[in-house]
């Protein structure tokens, strides 16, 4: 019998498991595959739009009036503490202040608000009068520096002012004999100091006075010195711009957190889908996984579901339009049709607000507000009520709910 089984290996699953294990609990983390951290951009968003652009995300959390939003269960201070918990788990990885959003350029040149950013992205912060040189790599097809630079240059800043940006593309050879190298293969190449020197030699002639250099987020995968080395060699501030998945910054975080979990004693089991559960009345006694063709039980005192929503397939809409939660068949909030509408650039698609409702302890509750199981908790993208990607709220919700769920299990909830 384990103290806890955590299902899912994204931010919420890993952080819940680590927090429990560090408190001395026996934890098994079950995951179907690698979690979603590397599908995201690698920053810690708390609240970017509500729907207007947010400058103080903690204040925006406090201002939530919609009881169905996950942040209704948290104060800004609690969210900040959860975000800091992650930052302390991964020292020297992030910079920033949970109470202040910064704007970072995206790979199409939009200004994206976020709270904590990897140190390698910090120099990209958009401020009035800043000058950018955006550098593309010819063999990397997911980054077009002209698109970034020209959209940046034509965007008025929220508080007034503007930036200037130029673009240049260099033919950096990530792998000999390959015209189409992935972001990860670029990053692997840049783990090698020789290749960094080659990249620097290609970029250096293009530098102009007073510019910061933006590169796609492929500056090394395992060598944490790669970015600083390139910056030092170029002699100007350098920053990374996240790409569509699979994203290298997310991979770095995922690997670090997974290692932390194992080091903390979490039993991480990949390749297991939870297909069934056992219960004694309203207490879960364990879950059953399908591993290599046979069913294996994992008995546990508490279970945390941190599977994410539709993106993982745990929320599933069938061909009749009915949405179900695939692991436990949990009751869902906001699941009434119509869940999609035809106006692509219009109002929120209700689909993305479907999820499970929870109480303040993060216990999954039914429509009557009563816990479905007394020891089943939820964290992260499975929670109902947020349009995570449009709001830029995913990591904040994941971390706050993970910390709360863990603390509830530890008996330390408020």
């Amino acid at each position, binding site marked *: 019998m384990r103290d806890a089984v955590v299902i899912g290996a994204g931010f919420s699953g890993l952080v819940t498991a680590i927090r429990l294990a560090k408190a001395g609990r026996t934890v*098994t983390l079950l*995951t*179907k*595959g*690698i*979690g*979603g951290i*590397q*599908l995201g951009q690698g920053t810690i968003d708390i609240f970017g739009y509500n729907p207007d652009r947010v400058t103080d995300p903690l204040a925006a959390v406090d201002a939530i009036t919609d009881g169905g939003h996950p942040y209704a269960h948290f104060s800004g201070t609690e969210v900040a503490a959860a975000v800091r918990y992650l930052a302390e788990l991964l020292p020297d990885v992030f910079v920033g202040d949970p109470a202040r959003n910064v704007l970072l350029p995206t790979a199409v040149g939009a200004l994206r608000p976020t709270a904590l950013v990897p140190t390698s992205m910090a120099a990209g912060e958009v401020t009035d009068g800043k000058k950018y040189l955006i550098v593309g790599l010819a063999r990397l097809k997911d980054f077009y520096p002209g698109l970034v630079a020209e959209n940046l240059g034509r965007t008025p800043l929220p508080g007034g002012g503007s930036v200037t940006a130029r673009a240049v593309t260099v033919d950096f050879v990530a*792998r000999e*004999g*390959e015209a189409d190298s*992935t972001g*990860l*293969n670029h990053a*692997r190449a840049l783990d090698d100091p020789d290749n960094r020197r080659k990249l620097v030699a290609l970029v250096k002639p293009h530098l102009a006075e007073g510019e910061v250099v933006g590169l796609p987020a492929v500056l090394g995968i395992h060598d944490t010195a790669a970015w600083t080395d390139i910056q030092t060699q170029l002699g100007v501030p350098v920053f990374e711009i996240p790409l569509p*998945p*699979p994203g290298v910054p997310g*991979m770095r975080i995922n690997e670090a957190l997974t*290692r932390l979990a*194992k080091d903390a004693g979490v*039993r*991480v*089991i*990949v*390749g*297991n*889908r939870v297909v069934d559960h056992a219960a004694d009345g309203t207490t879960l006694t364990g879950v059953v*996984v*399908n*591993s*290599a*063709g*046979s069913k*294996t039980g994992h008995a546990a005192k508490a279970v945390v579901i941190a599977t994410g929503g539709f*993106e*993982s*397939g745990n929320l599933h809409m069938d061909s009749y339009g009915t949405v179900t939660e695939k692991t436990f068949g949990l009751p869902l909030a906001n699941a009434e049709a119509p869940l999609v509408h035809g106006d692509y650039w219009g109002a929120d698609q209700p689909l993305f607000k479907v999820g499970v409702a929870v109480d303040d302890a993060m216990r999954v509750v039914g429509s009557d507000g009563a816990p479905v199981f007394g020891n089943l908790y939820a964290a992260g993208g499975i929670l109902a009520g947020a349009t995570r990607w449009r709001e830029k709220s995913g990591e904040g919700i994941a971390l706050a709910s993970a910390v709360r769920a863990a603390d509830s299990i530890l008996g330390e909830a408020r």
Partner: protein
Amino acid sequence: MTIEHTHEHEQLMRASLDHCVKCTICETQCPVAAVTPLFPGPKFVGPQAERYRHGLSVDHSIDYCSSCGTCTLVCPQGVHIAELNSLARGAMKQQNNMPFRDQIISRTTLMGAVMTPVAPVANWALGVKPIRVIAEKVIGLHRNAPMPTAHTQTLQGWVKRRGASAPAKPGSRGKIIYFHGCAANYFELETGQKTIEVLEHLGYEVIVPKQGCCGLPLQSNGLFDAARKYVRKLVADLRTGGKDIPIVSASTSCGSMLKREAEEILGVADPELADVGGRMVDIMELLLKLHDEGTLPEDFAPMDVTLPYHPPCQLKSHGIGVPATEVLELIPGVKIKESGVACCGMAGTYGIKKEKYDVAMAVGKPLFDMVLETNKELALCDSETCRWQIETATGVRTVHPITIIHKAYGLS
């Protein structure tokens, strides 16, 4: 097996491509794509290319897949990527002519049986460069690739011979069937002997039925029909050991064949296979289970040592996590350093082939470096071909984790 049945199975595997959302997580973890552009990556040759296949396989680069199964394991969406690739590769090999080499190395029992009576000669031949050079030229085995060492006796012979002298006490924990696989029978008797002795030490009555090859080498070389015959025969062999008795294995890849691959790749849906697969448990999985239940004797002799341990890809595909690490660290003083590497490059028989050898060595390089950095005397790995690969590449003696448990129980 009827034709319709195979069709149905292939259709099911093919249907899993519908789950692919192109997140490309599989390609980030593929050990082969990481080291060579010759392999386009599991997403490319798997769910992506499958939409273009119409009986005909036109993409020969799929043959660079080593079948390590990492892609299927890490896919968060449940696409049977490796299985799709295996099926497509099987179709391709049927279309083209199977190289003689793939037919030889696929028949492990044949190779073992042929080599055993003439072991000294065989070992001499395999150790001598000029002969290996000829082997490379003629049948395409790379001259530097690791080859198993043959013994003058088999594990089956050892079991039979020890017969009366073996501990006669009926197991306090009841019976258990031991599935040793070809490697322990012909090439690595030590692993088999130690597994049996540890099980007996724990109080099991170990039954070792006569048993053949599981067919995995045939399957990974695309010889599906022959592989099905082998696995069916093996299932019948193991069932002679008795009903409802758990079956334990220390060969991760052969265990995985019975647990999963025979059904998922070969489409064998016999209830007899399901029975055997459902009873199959890995030796380290069994020990961890006993530990969790609180019935594992933990009176281990202390050993002050840090050991590099490579959980092989075939073990990960069992979906049981990495039980050896936890079990070994129950021994006072033992520190285990997991390799953190997806694959050693061998992936069954992939790394012995002439055209794949360099790729396999590049795949394994981070592992070899890590082994040499951690301990130059001894390394651990659950899978036999991976042990040979690590040993050949690093010169570090590499054994199954059960060897350490055996020693810690004072059995050696």
